[in-house]
């Protein structure tokens, strides 16, 4: 059906969304449609003849079913009404039986509408029957005593369940309390949430071996005393050294210095020489030669950095092509490598070396020399014209005619 022109727009009317808990906004168009649907459904439901099949519970029930369908909206109730009646199979309330009897009498008549209306009134009066609730049935005193034991068992069950639950809760609580007590006994504090492995902990009980402990303490104390004395000695030695040098004359000092430097050089010579473009590992700025250093540390610090060769070493880099001549071979082929090699190669100055070198086209045959004889190394700029004589023009002479010319 085309959208009704109630809104006077060309836009399609969007269906209103269902939002739970919110009353649906009434749209006149939709209202009309739904009401039409309802009216269509009701006569349809009324017109459907009750099936005669025996699988259905009973005539009466079906009739009641149909009346219910008439009362409420079309599709949903059929299934709903069926279900409670199936539950209540064999259990018929007084009001229902009267209704069904009435129905049974006039069920086959054609005037369904009349029946419907009457049924509606009656069924609306006992709306309780629509719910799947067990209506209380009267039991005579004799039969009551038979049924008596069942009812207390229900309440008993409830009580039992509660008791069970309480007991379980108690048991849990008990277990937790016990665990806490055990943990506290073991010394674990409740603010301490890390698990200390008991094997890792060291034992700090005293007096396990008094003699050994005392001996250990004596050793420590002696070391401390020794350390103190050595600092004193060190200071003394330095003071003496300063005194000595002060008392020496200048020449003696220079002699000592020279000897010291030579000794240093000797040490350095023992180490290797740096190769061409060798990878250079700096020792680091914090190489102080303290006494508290490990043997390994000392060895590492005094290593021969220049003479070290390692497994992946490329050897002599002079034979490599220029592209591969880099200090750090791990950068080979990687992005972002600058072409900078070292200062010497980047230098564009001519430090007097070129003048003494052979000309480029010296030994080459005459045919292959450039046209202008020796312009190989010279300036190649665009405006590179040697400064020559100023070209005198004839009309130029009168420019500065007032001044005398002295050229």
């Amino acid at each position: 059906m085309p959208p009704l022109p109630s809104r006077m727009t060309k836009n399609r009317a969007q269906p209103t969304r269902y939002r739970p808990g919110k009353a649906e906004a009434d749209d006149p168009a939709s209202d009309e449609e739904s009401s039409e649907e309802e009216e269509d459904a009701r006569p349809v439901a009324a017109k459907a003849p009750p099936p005669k099949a025996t699988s259905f519970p009973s005539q009466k029930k079906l009739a009641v079913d149909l009346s219910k369908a008439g009362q409420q909206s079309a599709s949903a109730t059929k299934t709903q009404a069926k279900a409670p009646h199936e539950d209540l199979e064999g259990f018929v309330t007084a009001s229902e039986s009267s209704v069904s009897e009435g129905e049974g009498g006039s069920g086959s008549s054609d005037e369904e509408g009349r029946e419907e209306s009457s049924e509606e009134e009656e069924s609306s009066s006992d709306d309780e029957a629509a719910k799947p609730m067990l209506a209380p049935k009267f039991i005579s005193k004799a039969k009551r005593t038979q049924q008596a034991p069942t009812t207390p068992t229900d309440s008993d069950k409830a009580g039992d369940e509660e008791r069970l639950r309480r007991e379980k809760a108690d048991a849990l609580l008990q277990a937790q309390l016990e665990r806490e007590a055990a943990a506290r006994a073991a010394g674990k504090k409740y603010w301490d949430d890390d698990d200390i492995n008991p094997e890792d902990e060291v034992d700090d009980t005293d007096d396990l071996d008094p003699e050994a402990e005392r001996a250990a303490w004596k050793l420590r104390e002696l070391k401390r005393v020794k350390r103190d004395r050595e600092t004193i000695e060190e200071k003394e030695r330095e003071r003496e050294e300063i005194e000595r040098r002060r008392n020496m004359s200048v020449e003696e000092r220079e002699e000592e210095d020279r000897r010291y430097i030579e000794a240093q050089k000797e040490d350095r010579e023992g180490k290797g020489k740096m190769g061409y473009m060798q990878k250079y590992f700096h020792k680091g700025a914090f190489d102080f030669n303290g006494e508290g250093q490990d043997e390994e540390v000392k060895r590492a610090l005094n290593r021969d950095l220049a003479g070290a060769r390692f497994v992946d070493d490329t050897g002599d880099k002079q034979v490599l092509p220029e592209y591969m001549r880099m200090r750090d071979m791990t950068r080979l082929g990687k992005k972002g490598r600058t072409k900078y090699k070292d200062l010497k190669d980047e230098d564009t100055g001519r430090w007097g070396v070129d003048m003494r070198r052979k000309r480029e086209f010296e030994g080459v045959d005459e045919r292959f020399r450039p046209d202008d004889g020796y312009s190989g190394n010279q300036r190649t700029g665009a405006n590179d014209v040697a400064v020559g004589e100023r070209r005198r023009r004839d009309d130029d002479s009168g420019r500065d005619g007032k001044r005398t010319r002295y050229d």
Partner: protein
Amino acid sequence: MRAIYPAGKQLLPTTNMAHQADARRALDERGYTGALIRGDNPLKLFEKAVRDRIVDSYYWKEQCFGLNAATLLDRAVELNFIGGTYGVAQKPTPFLCLAFKLLQLTPDREIIEFYLQQGGEEFKYLRALAAFYVRLALEKDEEVYSTLEPFLGDYRKLKRRTREGWQITYVDQFVDDLLTKSRVCATTLPKLNPRLFLEDEDRLEPRVSALGEELEELDNDDGERANGQSDDNDEGRMNGHVDGNGLADSQPEDRSDDSMNGD
């Protein structure tokens, strides 16, 4: 003797920051009106990172709230180990938290002395805690030395928690670290003049070792042997000085080590 507080400053109960839920008021620069150590907030002796870890820890929040000097004693006697921060998350030890609390409280000298001496006789971790506080809080170098040096004779074991695991150390070793090293228990210790410097200035006497007479004997033995053969044990051997500066001259030694331990 109130050596910790600046002269003339009364300590009012209201300025005691001990009962704040966390140390933030005490850490706040603007509002601090408590005692000063070296002219600054005592809590600033710990670095910011360490301070944050302490204040965020469970131990601090649960156990160190509202402590005073007496109740701190209860906590301190429950201490099991010393240490700074440990683990990946730099968790502070209870020892460090209590030291922080002590700095917050800045108790009197007498109380600290009590912790060190009488309390420390029975509880070695309390002694370690008080020694740590003394090293941090006392401003005069000679006082630090004179207070801590007697405990170089206490050789009880201490359990120490490092970043990686556990270590055994001793009370005398710990005190020695406090006097010599620059960083102990996650704190950079304030600068302390070396003992030699103080001796030269005559502010301190040369140290009397707890070994005392035994040291003298060793020295004499080595002195005799040094003239003859060279010997492995060169402790006490000096270049021409038989008894050096570090050794007392035949003073009557009471065996100070005996009086030190509570065994």
